[in-house]
C-alpha cells in the first residue's frame, strides 16, 4: 500500500512542477489538409485525381437518381407491397403490433443496458457540417430545378450555422447519443405530418394519380405511435431498472429478443384460429402432466445426495426419448408435442446434477423448467393452429417482411447449431469431432442455392405422413443448416484463440467440462470473433435474396418481378432495383455500425 501512496505523491509532484501551460500544436483545416491531402507532390496528385473520380461518379449517380425521367411513383405507390406483400388491410394492425413489440424491446434494452454514450457539442457541430456538405454536393451535382436548389441551399446554410454555433459557443456541452438518434427519428416522422410528400394509392387494384399533400393517415399515424412506443418503453425501462436485479432484467430481455421472431410470426402475424375446446381437452392436460411429473422428477434428480443414480436415470431418459422419436418412423403414432416434451425433459434432466445445491437453487431450477415447458408447449400449439390470414399465396408474409423473417430465423437457428458444431469439432472425443468435421466440410462444399433447391424439392419426402413444410419453412431450415457450418468455423477460430492456461485454471478449480465451456471458454471465444460473426450476419441477410431463385416472394422478387410487372409502371425497373438495393444497404450498414459499437463496449472487459 505504501508503494502506491509514494507513486501518487510522485505524480502529484510532477503536476505541480509543470506550471507552464503546454503549447498548442499547429492545427486547423489548412494544417490538416497539408498534412493529410497534400503532404507531397504525389499525394497532391492522388488527392486531386480521387476527388475528380468521386465528382464524376456522384454527378452521374445523382443525375440518374434525380433525373426528370425517373419514375419513383412505382416505388412510392407500392411501398406496402414491398414490405408486406398482400397482407390484408383489415388485419394490418397486426403488422404494427409486431413492429411495436420489437421497438418496445429496443427501448427497454437501451434503458436496461444503460446506453450511455454521449456526444459533445464539437462533434455534433462536425456532423452538422457534414450534413451541410452533403446537401451542397447534392445541390451542385444534381439536376434540380432552381427552386429546389434554393431550398437545399437554405437547409445547408441552416446546418452550417448550427454547426458553427455549436463549435464556437458550446463545444463542451454533452448530450446523450440516444437523444440525438431519437431526435433525428422524430424529425423524420414529424416530416410525414408537414412535408407534402404526396399521396400514392391503389383503389381496387387501379393506380390513382398521385395527389398533393402529406402521406396517408394509415402511414403517418402508425409511425408516430411506433416512435412513441419506443420512447415510452425507454422511460419505463429507466424507471424500473433500479428496482429489479440487473441479472434478471437482462435475462428477461435476452429471452424476449430470442422469442421475438417466433412470437411475432406464429402468434401475431399468422393470427392463428385457436379451437379452445381442443386446447382445454388436449393441450392443457398434456402441459399439466409434464409440469407435475417433470417437476417432481427434476426435484428428485437435483438433490445433492442423489449421486451416480441420477446420471444413470437421466441417461436412460435421453435414450428413451430418442427411441420414442424413432418409433414414429415405425408407425407408433402419438402426438408430436408429447415427443417434444419428453425429449425436453430428458435433456433438462441431464443438466440437473449441475444445478444441485440449496433448496432455493433447486426451486429456481424447477421454475426454469416450468417456464421452458410452458413456452415450448404454447409455441407448438400456435404453430400447429392454422393461420386465418387470407393471402393469394400460401404464406402470409412477402417482400421485406419475408426477407426479415427468413434472415432472423436463420440466424436464431444457426447460432446454437453452429456453436454445437464448433465445440464438436474441437472436442477431445473422436466421434464428435468426426461427425462435426464431416458435416461442416460437406455443407461448405455445396453451393447455398443447391441446398435451397434440394430442401424445396426433397425435404417433404423425408417427413412423416401428414406433415409438410411449406417452401418458406424448408428454405429457412436449409439455409439455417448451411449457415451453421460457416458460423461453426468462425466460432472455432475463437475457440482456438483461448490460451491453454484458461482451461488449466478452470480445471485446477475443479470445474467440470460443461462449466469450463459455458463460463470460461465460450464467452471469451465469442468476444474474440465478433467481427467475423457480424460479417456472417450481414452475408446471411443479403443472401436471403437467393430465395428469389427458388420462387419465394422475397424483397427482391417483389421489386423485380411483381412491381416490375405492373402495367401501370412499365419501364421503372431501374428505380425498383435501386430502391431494393438502398433498403438492403441501410440495414447492412446499420448492422455494421452497431457492431463497431459492440466491439468498443466489449473491449473494456478484455484488457
Amino acid at each position, binding site marked *: *500500500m505504501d*508503494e502506491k501512496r509514494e507513486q501518487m505523491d510522485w505524480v502529484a509532484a510532477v503536476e505541480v512542477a509543470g506550471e507552464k501551460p503546454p503549447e498548442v500544436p499547429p492545427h486547423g483545416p489548412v494544417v490538416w489538409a497539408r498534412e493529410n491531402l497534400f503532404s507531397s507532390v504525389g499525394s497532391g496528385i492522388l488527392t486531386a485525381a480521387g476527388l475528380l473520380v468521386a465528382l464524376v461518379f456522384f454527378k452521374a449517380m445523382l443525375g440518374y437518381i434525380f433525373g426528370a425521367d425517373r419514375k419513383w411513383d412505382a416505388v412510392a405507390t407500392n411501398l406496402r407491397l414491398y414490405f408486406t406483400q398482400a397482407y390484408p388491410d383489415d388485419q394490418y394492425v397486426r403488422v404494427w403490433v409486431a413492429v411495436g413489440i420489437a421497438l418496445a424491446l429496443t427501448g427497454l434494452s437501451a434503458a436496461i443496458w444503460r446506453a450511455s454514450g454521449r456526444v459533445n457539442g464539437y462533434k455534433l457541430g462536425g456532423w452538422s457540417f457534414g450534413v451541410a456538405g452533403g446537401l451542397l454536393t447534392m445541390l451542385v451535382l444534381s439536376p434540380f430545378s432552381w427552386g429546389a436548389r434554393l431550398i437545399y441551399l437554405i437547409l445547408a446554410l441552416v446546418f452550417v450555422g448550427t454547426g458553427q454555433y455549436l463549435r464556437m459557443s458550446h463545444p463542451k456541452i454533452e448530450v446523450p447519443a440516444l437523444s440525438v438518434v431519437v431526435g433525428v427519428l422524430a424529425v423524420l416522422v414529424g416530416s410525414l405530418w408537414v412535408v407534402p410528400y404526396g399521396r400514392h394509392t391503389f383503389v381496387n387494384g387501379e393506380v390513382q394519380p398521385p395527389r398533393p399533400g402529406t402521406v396517408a393517415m394509415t402511414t403517418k399515424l402508425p409511425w408516430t405511435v411506433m416512435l412513441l412506443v419506443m420512447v415510452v418503453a425507454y422511460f419505463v425501462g429507466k424507471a424500473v431498472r433500479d428496482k429489479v436485479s440487473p441479472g434478471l432484467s437482462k435475462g428477461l430481455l435476452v429471452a424476449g429478443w430470442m422469442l421475438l421472431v417466433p412470437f411475432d410470426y406464429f402468434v401475431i402475424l399468422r393470427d392463428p384460429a385457436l379451437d379452445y375446446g381442443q386446447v382445454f381437452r388436449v393441450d392443457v392436460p398434456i402441459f399439466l402432466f409434464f409440469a407435475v411429473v417433470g417437476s417432481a422428477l427434476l426435484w428428485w434428480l437435483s438433490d*445433492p445426495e442423489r449421486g451416480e443414480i441420477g446420471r444413470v436415470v437421466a441417461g436412460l431418459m435421453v435414450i428413451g426419448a430418442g427411441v420414442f422419436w424413432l418409433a414414429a418412423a415405425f408407425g407408433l403414432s402419438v402426438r408430436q408435442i408429447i415427443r417434444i416434451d419428453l425429449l425436453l425433459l430428458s435433456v433438462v434432466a441431464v443438466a440437473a446434477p*449441475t444445478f*444441485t*445445491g*440449496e433448496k*432455493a*437453487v433447486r426451486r429456481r431450477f424447477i421454475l426454469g423448467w416450468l417456464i421452458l415447458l410452458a413456452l415450448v408447449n404454447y409455441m407448438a400449439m400456435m404453430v400447429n393452429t392454422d393461420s386465418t390470414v387470407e393471402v393469394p399465396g400460401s404464406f402470409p408474409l412477402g417482400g421485406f417482411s419475408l426477407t426479415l423473417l427468413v434472415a432472423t430465423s436463420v440466424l436464431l437457428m444457426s447460432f446454437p447449431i453452429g456453436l454445437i458444431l464448433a465445440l464438436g469439432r474441437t472436442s477431445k472425443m473422436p466421434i464428435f469431432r468426426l461427425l462435426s468435421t464431416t458435416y461442416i466440410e460437406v455443407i461448405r462444399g455445396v453451393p447455398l442455392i443447391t441446398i435451397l433447391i434440394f430442401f424445396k424439392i426433397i425435404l417433404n419426402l423425408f417427413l412423416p405422413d401428414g406433415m409438410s413444410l411449406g417452401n418458406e419453412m424448408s428454405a429457412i431450415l436449409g439455409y439455417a443448416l448451411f449457415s451453421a457450418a460457416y458460423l461453426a468455423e468462425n466460432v472455432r477460430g475463437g475457440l482456438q484463440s483461448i*490460451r491453454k*492456461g*484458461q482451461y*488449466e*485454471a*478452470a*480445471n*485446477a*478449480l*475443479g*470445474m*467440470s467440462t460443461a*462449466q469450463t465451456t459455458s*463460463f*470460461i471458454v465460450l*464467452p*471469451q471465444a465469442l*468476444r474474440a470473433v465478433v467481427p467475423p460473426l457480424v460479417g456472417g450476419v450481414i452475408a446471411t441477410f443479403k443472401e436471403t435474396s437467393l430465395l428469389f431463385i427458388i420462387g419465394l416472394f422475397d424483397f427482391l422478387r417483389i421489386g423485380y418481378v411483381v412491381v416490375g410487372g405492373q402495367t401501370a409502371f412499365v419501364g421503372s425497373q431501374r428505380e425498383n432495383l435501386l430502391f431494393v438495393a438502398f433498403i438492403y444497404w441501410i440495414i447492412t450498414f446499420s448492422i455494421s455500425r452497431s457492431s463497431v459499437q459492440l466491439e468498443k463496449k466489449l473491449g*473494456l*472487459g*478484455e*484488457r
Partner: protein
Amino acid sequence: MTGLEARADMIVCEGVKKWFGDFQALRGIDMTVEEREVVVVLGPSGSGKSTLIRCINRLEVHQEGRIIVDGVELTNDLRNIEKIRSEVGMVFQQFNLFPHLTIMDNITLAPIWVRKKPREEAETLAMELLDRVGIPEQADKYPGQLSGGQQQRVAIARALAMEPRVMLFDEPTSALDPEMIKEVLDVMKELAQTGMTMIVVTHEMGFAREVADRIIFMESGEIVEEGTPEHFFTNPTEDRTKLFLSQIL
C-alpha cells in the same frame, strides 16, 4: 515450524514417472509431504519441477507410479479428479485469471458452481480473501486493469476461495517485474504461517531459506537432494547441488 506431534501425510508420490513423447520428464519420484508442511522445490529449468506439481492435481497425467492426495489415489476416475482438484489450489506463473470476469467473479465462480455455495456467502468470503491479500478495493475491476503483482494476489485469493487443503505454486513470481515480487511473496509467507500445506516451485532463494520446512532439489527428472534449508544452503552433500548453488548465489 517442526512440531513434534505426528502429522498425517497429505501428498504421497511413489515412483512417479512421466514421459512427453520419448522425453522422460520424471524418472521415478518418491516424495511425501505432511500436513502443514511447506516444501520448496528447486532446480534448473527443465528439471521436471513444474511437471511434478502439475501431476499432483492431474493437469498432467503420470504414466507410472502412484500419487495419493489426502488419502485419495489419482486415477482416471473423473469423480476422484474433480474432488482432488477442488481440494488442491494452484497458482500459475502466468496468473491465468479469467479476463472477461471481474475480480469478484473470478474468485466466486468456482465456489458457487463447484462448491455450490450461496452467492452472498461466496462474496463475503471473497471480500475477506481480498482483504487478506491486500487489495479489497479492486473487487469490481477486470484483471487487465491490475498490475502483475495484484493479479497474482487475486489468483492466490481465487485458489483459497475453494478452501483447499493444499496449495501448489508453480513459479508464482517468475513473470513479475522485480518491484512486485515482494508483495506476492509476503502473501505466501503469511499463508505458510497460518499452517497451509504448500508446495512451491520457485527461484526465490530468500523465500526458500526463510519459509521452507524442507527443500527438494531436482535435476533431470530426479530428486537429487532434500533437507532443511539450513542443510541445503550451508552444507549440501551432492556435487550437482553444489554446482547449482554456485551458479545461483
